[in-house]
């Protein structure tokens, strides 16, 4: 058989086979185990990534032992806040309760990291100006962290709507009470989102003070409701909490 192959072919076949063998051997040596199995990468690397150790246990585990705290938290404003948000990673604690204790930070700063007033925070998120809000007291002296109801329901609207209050107070509407324009259900203070306050609905509502012929004080600017603003509602151009800024 071998002899029947012409000589010139035999001379090529031998180095060709040798090259293929060398290629296969080198490839075997260079390409790591599992490479190309699932794609252009080492398959064991996926497993390595998937088997890294945990630090955060996840909220479900905590409830098994701390059911009474979970119960208190369930109806409070902090119901959406995970245990480990304040107490830090607790996987080690779930493995050995005695040796690893989760952190308990009682400092004011621990609460203020979320609740210090910042203009960038969304409106309605409860914020305080720490320098003026009982500066020498710990937060937990009045608020239970697992059910942080204020000790007395906020009296003024500014307790929660601080950014609106700040804008309003320097505007021409600064002397108006919130209830002049907003009808506030009694339960809004206890369950704010369930009982939202009402807003003005019509141009005539602003016209009570600003329409021509209104009985309000003389220095209040007047407009002709018929012609001013056309089809637009007042608050589509004038921000009611700062009406002079257009």
């Amino acid at each position, binding site marked *: 058989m071998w002899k029947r192959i012409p000589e010139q072919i035999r001379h090529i076949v031998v180095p060709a086979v040798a090259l293929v063998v060398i290629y296969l051997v080198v490839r075997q040596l260079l390409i790591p185990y599992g490479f*190309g199995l699932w794609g252009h990468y080492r398959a064991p690397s996926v497993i390595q990534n998937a088997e890294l150790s945990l630090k955060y246990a996840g909220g479900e585990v905590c409830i098994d032992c701390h059911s009474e705290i979970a119960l208190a938290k369930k109806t409070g404003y902090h119901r*959406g806040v995970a245990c480990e948000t304040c107490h830090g990673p607790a996987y080690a604690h779930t493995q050995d309760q005695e040796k690893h204790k989760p952190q308990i930070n009682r400092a004011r700063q621990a609460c203020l990291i979320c609740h210090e007033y910042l203009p960038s925070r969304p409106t309605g998120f409860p914020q305080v100006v720490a320098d003026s809000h009982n500066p020498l007291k710990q937060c937990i002296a009045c608020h239970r962290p697992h059910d942080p109801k204020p000790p007395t329901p906020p009296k003024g609207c500014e307790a929660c709507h601080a950014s609106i209050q700040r804008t309003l107070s320097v505007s021409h509407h600064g002397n108006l009470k919130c209830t002049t324009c907003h009808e506030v259900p009694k339960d809004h203070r206890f369950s704010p989102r369930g009982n939202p306050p009402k807003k003005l609905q019509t141009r005539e509502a602003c016209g009570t003070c600003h329409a021509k012929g209104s009985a309000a004080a003389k220095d209040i600017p007047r407009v002709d409701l018929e012609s001013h603003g056309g089809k637009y509602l007042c608050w589509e151009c004038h921000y009611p909490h700062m009406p002079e800024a257009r």
Partner: protein
Amino acid sequence: MRKERPGNGHDQSRRDFCRTILLGTLSLVVPGSVIGATGTKGLSDWYGTKYKPKEHLYAMGIKVDRCIGCGRCVDACKRENNVPDYPFYTRTWIERYITTEEGQTIVDSPNGGKDGFKAQVSDKKLLKTYFVPKICNQCHKPPCVQVCPVGATYKTDDGVILVDPEYCIGCRYCIQACPYGMRYFHPKTRVVDKCTFCYHRIVKGLLPACVEVCPTQARVFGDLKSKASPVIQFVRFNKIFVLKPDLNTEPKVYYADLDMEVR
């Protein structure tokens, strides 16, 4: 149609020659791939069997209007994934956008937002201001994977972009390629590191650390292949934006209430 060639002694036609070559090649490749496929059995006793990556496709939703800029996500991510505290590398971070009445936009992110934000000193009048959490977009078409010269970064079957720290040569090409700046060079391991959606957590059914600790549910995490997933709900009921859609990377981090200024 075999043509007899006289006086040669070899009656191999061109077709036969091609067939032999083809069969020869196949006989090399087929056993090779079979060995390759069976040779990796026993990689893991649960991955691929108990947990099937092809049945999942992970994505995240971020509701910008809910972010309070507390930085708990940044802190949790660093603790969960051993991200160095200094220099200030982060796998996820929070940016604060401040647009003044003059129309100028200032963006800052002190220490990635890990220690929270201080009230802005600027007394310029604010037009609007808000926080935007940033995280690896886990693109459908990831440019970082495309440029890796050695295959050390890749997309898994469940749609997460991972790094193979043992195989990475530290050339930093992927850091250059990522249009979102989501990768950094780890100063200790000397390889590239990035957000993995906490891959070791999500394959066990846990949430990524940043989603776990977010106190206002600004971050939502879920599986796009499961109808009951919160991220499906998020995508259905919000107007969704992605970062830099013009780059055609098809991110899997969806933003709701995103402002035009955000890049």
